[in-house]
């Protein structure tokens, strides 16, 4: 195995005039600045918060003691935690799948559009440019009970004032946040999936047409399996963004009222910064980290495989 990926023949290897030693060192040298930045801002703080999660750390307490797993036990025996956890799983499952289904539908229509595809794509990309925090503020206002866009529409359509407290009532708050998240996520799905559909060869579809296949059959047996890698990329990147939901939720409801729309990320904020319980907050933040890591690891294992296998 050569030490440099591009080395293929002895003549070329000589031309590099790079010693085996240098070839081993060079990539690490290139990686060093980035890795240092990550060590200082991510790795070290996360180790520190790992340590804090096993102590009774408090800004106002002069001494900090090691208390073992007590913070985690406190967390796991708390009903609010499990409710927030369950709600987060439900939220993510609904969000990613609905975004995918809506995105696939629009992508199919876009790929077949007769006119104005470029313009449509530009318009559709607008939500992607919104900061999640902007999306949060905008949808907080759209769902405002007094002057929000949604209640205004209901007023105009029915002719009577409706003061529906979208962000306060039980399933409505959850749904409102879901709508905001979907609005933010669908355009990205469409762009990637449409690129996939447009890249498909035309021959299999012509053959299927000759054989009298229906539109659904063509979609089910040709389009869907053939755009698999694009579906995978789109879902992977969207899932990596999952913690961005924090921005939206924290602004629209802050997890409230009470803990009605609490997700695991808003629960970290509530424990640490509202309740000043940094130690339990640290334990909680590790729950969110593990959730994200499981997602990332599962998804990127495959990305890595598709990227590097067969290249060396």
């Amino acid at each position, binding site marked *: 195995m050569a030490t440099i990926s591009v080395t293929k023949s002895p003549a070329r290897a000589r031309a590099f005039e790079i010693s085996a030693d240098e070839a081993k060192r060079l990539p690490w040298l*290139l990686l060093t*600045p980035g890795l240092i930045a990550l060590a200082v801002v991510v790795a070290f703080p996360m180790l520190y918060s790992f340590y804090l999660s096993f102590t009774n750390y408090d800004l106002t307490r002069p001494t900090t003691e090691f208390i073992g797993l007590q913070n985690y036990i406190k967390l796991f025996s708390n009903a609010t935690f499990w409710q927030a956890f369950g709600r987060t799983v439900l939220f993510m499952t609904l969000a990613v799948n609905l975004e995918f289904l809506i995105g696939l539908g629009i992508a199919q229509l876009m790929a077949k*559009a007769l006119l104005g595809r470029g313009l449509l794509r*530009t318009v559709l990309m607008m939500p992607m440019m919104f900061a999640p*925090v902007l999306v949060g503020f905008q949808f907080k206002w759209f769902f405002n009970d007094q002057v929000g866009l949604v209640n205004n529409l209901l007023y105009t359509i029915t002719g009577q004032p409706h003061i529906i407290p979208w962000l306060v009532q039980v399933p409505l708050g959850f749904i409102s946040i879901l709508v905001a998240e979907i609005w933010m996520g669908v355009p990205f799905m469409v762009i990637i999936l449409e690129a996939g559909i447009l890249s498909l060869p035309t021959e299999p579809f012509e053959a299927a047409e000759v054989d009298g296949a229906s539109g659904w059959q063509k979609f089910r047996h040709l389009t869907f399996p053939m755009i698999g890698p694009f579906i995978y990329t789109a879902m992977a990147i969207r899932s990596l963004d999952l913690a961005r939901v924090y921005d939206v939720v924290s602004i629209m409801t802050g997890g409230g009222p009470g803990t009605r729309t609490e997700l695991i990320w808003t629960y970290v904020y509530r424990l640490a910064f509202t309740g000043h319980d940094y130690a339990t907050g640290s334990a909680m*933040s590790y729950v969110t980290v593990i959730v994200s890591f499981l997602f990332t690891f599962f998804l990127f294992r495959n990305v890595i495989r598709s990227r590097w296998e067969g290249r060396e």
Partner: protein
Amino acid sequence: MSAVGYTKAGRRPRIGDYLRDAALYLIIFIFFLPVLWIILTSIRPNMEINTRPPIWIPRELTLDSYKILLGWPTPEGAFGLGSNIPFGQYARNSIIIATVSTLFSLTFGTLAGYAFARFAFKGKNGVFLGMMLARAVPGIALSLPLFVLYARLGLSDSILGMIITYVALNVPFTAWLMDGFFRAIPAELDEAALIDGCSRWSAFLRVDLPLALPGAAASGIFAFLTAWNEFALANVITRTPASRTFPPALYEFTGQFVSDWRGMCAMSVMMLIPAIIFVALVQRQLMTGLTSGAMKG
């Protein structure tokens, strides 16, 4: 690609095709509606926004909300919480933090991406996965220890602290994108340069870097927008106008008793302007970078 006005299969469009397009336009319009509504609200008088029953078609347009935000003279009685907001200071902070952090993360990420794309080394997959995991740490989880650490180091509520944070935040994704762009350049070009007597370093500078420049522009803009839009960490690290950026500043439009939705819309539009310009400039390169994994797979 089929000719304009014809379906993909090459036949003349039927009525069904037009209906399908009409449905598509309607769906896209629904997605566009919030954007339109924000822009429209920012240029309407407050009266019209808060009236019930609602007024849909504006009867009067005004730039008061922008004037209030920028501290320009406004007509008597124009209301807006924007007058309490040091907009210029926030703009300065946001621009400095996003620009400087982008320059550094782009440099670091490009070097890392080059290492991933052109070398086979032990632990490569491990480092790559480690970087992606570092990127996957939720901002809110990171905000807690950073808040405590920065307080001890005197970095809290400082522009320097924010820059360091965003450099690290952007390195992994930049490295991932740049890896894709470098791999798209044939390795033979590199080899030819090396055989002609270039050093590894000058081959990188003269061959790979110029060819990867459009990709680097896209990655840089992506990093800029991430820093420009970041909220979870900024909300905790920045405490005063000394270092506060736009995203946490939006809070200042929604008070407990009175909210200035028009002012918030005006500030939203201001925040969107760089995003719209940049994304329009590099959308093609960005899509190539994002989908290259799928194409190869």
